[in-house]
């Protein structure tokens, strides 16, 4: 199954060209905004999530990221959603004071089992946050080269350098690992084809055959990964790589209008979050919309 979720897509939008550090910080801000509670009223929160969802779709479109692929890949998350659903149904009950009639808190009943509004709201929270987080990370990883991503991460973690944590060694390790993901993918593809020519069927076949087929894939993959990493280490040493030396950059970014726009956007977003948290607007209360009771 081919999925492009999260894989760098080499388009040429202004989001692609934006400095990765700006994108990283913006991504973190957007993520925080997904986990905030903006109102005592759960329905108001969910409404805000819906607005976030629309905003993220717009950003996805600007970055030419296919947000539909998210929903296709969400199929894999269904198991988890169902799990959460079951847990919710069995274990959440609003903690009502003695003597209060629970009837208005119940959304519906299946036989003796009462499904409370609270369960439904909780479930919606989980799904909404999951979807939103996946959307943000997807936009970031689809529009940023892995190398730029690690550089941005290294930059963000500079304070750790003050307490003598060798960040650039980690960054080097991470960027090497990222660099070799496509190589490993090609290698996997090659070995799979070679074994398929020897009659391995990776798609059909019994469970036992599939396990054996996996062994026939993984062992050659590891062999080649070890060889490659050994060669790489030699090549790096031969060219004078010293893990303790001070690093310089081959590529330096020149800040442009788009980067300032990105910062501005991030700042505006923070301001928006703060405003929402301070004023805790509740359009439902304002317009007197009757809502089911959640507690």
């Amino acid at each position: 199954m081919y999925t492009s979720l999260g894989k760098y897509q080499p388009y040429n939008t202004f989001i692609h060209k934006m400095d990765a550090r700006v994108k990283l910080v913006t991504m973190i801000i957007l993520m925080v905004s997904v986990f905030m509670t903006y109102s005592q009223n759960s329905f108001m929160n969910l409404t805000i999530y819906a607005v976030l969802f629309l905003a993220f779709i717009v950003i996805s479109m600007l970055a030419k990221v296919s947000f539909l692929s998210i929903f296709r890949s969400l199929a894999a998350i269904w198991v988890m959603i169902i799990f959460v659903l079951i847990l919710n149904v069995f274990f959440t009950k609003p903690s009502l004071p003695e003597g209060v009639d629970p009837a208005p808190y119940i959304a519906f009943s299946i036989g003796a089992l009462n499904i409370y509004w609270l369960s439904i709201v909780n479930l919606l929270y989980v799904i909404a946050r999951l979807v939103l987080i996946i959307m943000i990370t997807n936009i970031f990883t689809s529009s940023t080269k892995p190398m730029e991503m690690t550089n941005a991460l290294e930059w963000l973690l500079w304070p750790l350098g003050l307490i003598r944590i060798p960040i650039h060694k980690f960054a080097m390790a991470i960027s090497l690992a990222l660099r070799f993901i496509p190589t490993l993918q090609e290698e996997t593809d090659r070995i799979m084809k070679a074994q398929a020519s020897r009659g391995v069927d990776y798609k059909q076949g019994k469970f036992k055959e599939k396990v054996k087929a996996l062994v026939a894939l993984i062992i050659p993959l590891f062999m080649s990964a070890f060889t490659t990493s050994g060669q790489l280490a030699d090549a790096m040493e031969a060219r004078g790589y010293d893990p303790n030396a001070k690093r310089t950059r081959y590529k330096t970014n020149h800040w442009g209008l788009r980067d300032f726009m990105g910062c501005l956007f991030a700042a505006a977003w923070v301001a928006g979050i703060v405003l929402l948290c301070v004023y805790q607007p509740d359009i439902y209360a304002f317009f007197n919309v009757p809502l089911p009771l959640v507690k």
Partner: protein
Amino acid sequence: MSIKLEQVNYTYNPHRPGEKVALRDINLVFQDHCFTALIGRTGSGKSTLIQQLNGLLLPTHGKIIADDYVIDMTLVYKKDGKVDERAMKKKHKVKLQNIKSLRKKVGIVFQFPEYQIFEESVIKDVSYGPKNFGKSEEEAIKQAKEALTLVGIDESYYERSPFELSGGEKRRVAIAGILAMEPDILVLDEPTVGLDAAGEEKLMGLITHLYEQGTSIILATHNMDVVLKYCKRAIVLDHGKIVHDSTPLDLFQNSEYLKSSSLEPPKVFRFALDLIQGGLDLDLSKVKDTKTLANEIIRVKGGNA
């Protein structure tokens, strides 16, 4: 067994970034018991073409007929004459029935086949293929032993770990892994790359032997010496298209086809051409390598070889 390709096109990553047309309108028949070379510079589509032959890659559109096994991806048109993308998508989604029967007949030895080795002993690894194609344990071992004998790996190696072997030995074990399947057509992707002269000679000797035993051989290579010496037919690919299809002799005589692919006739052949220009009446069809060239010179000069 023969394989026929009709209007085969192949595109990597269609409609996505990184889209790359690798094969264009390939029409080709590999006759039963052929010894064919696929020639072309790197990136000309040799490996892609090879992978069409046993269904590892399916044509983006086109048709492949391997005896009674048919992979039909011919274009479907709508009433207005445009390609019916929906119908094509559907065609590609249909699972190939019994693809193993095709893969059993068409054995592919990939470039650097030593990467496919994974079992703990040589004999186990070589018998892996036959077992996958439904042979019993004993039969598989028997076929493995025969294949190993063919590639010149003797009994003392059977129980050794294939990972301890030298590079050349590993490659021979890997090739035995395909031979053990007893394919009707043996396809090899650049088999001589990375071998020394002796290793190359040995390997080509083995391939010729298999050919004489009745196996069809298809060989991707840019080693022109090999093409001249061993092959019966040479097909030149350039940018995914067939630009020439003839005997090696015809190909090297009309070397403009090679030039466009930045390839050159073998040195022996060029030397023979120079000799002819210098007035020697050589029979070019007899010139295969230095030895046969020497024989020709002796013949023309009236000596006894």
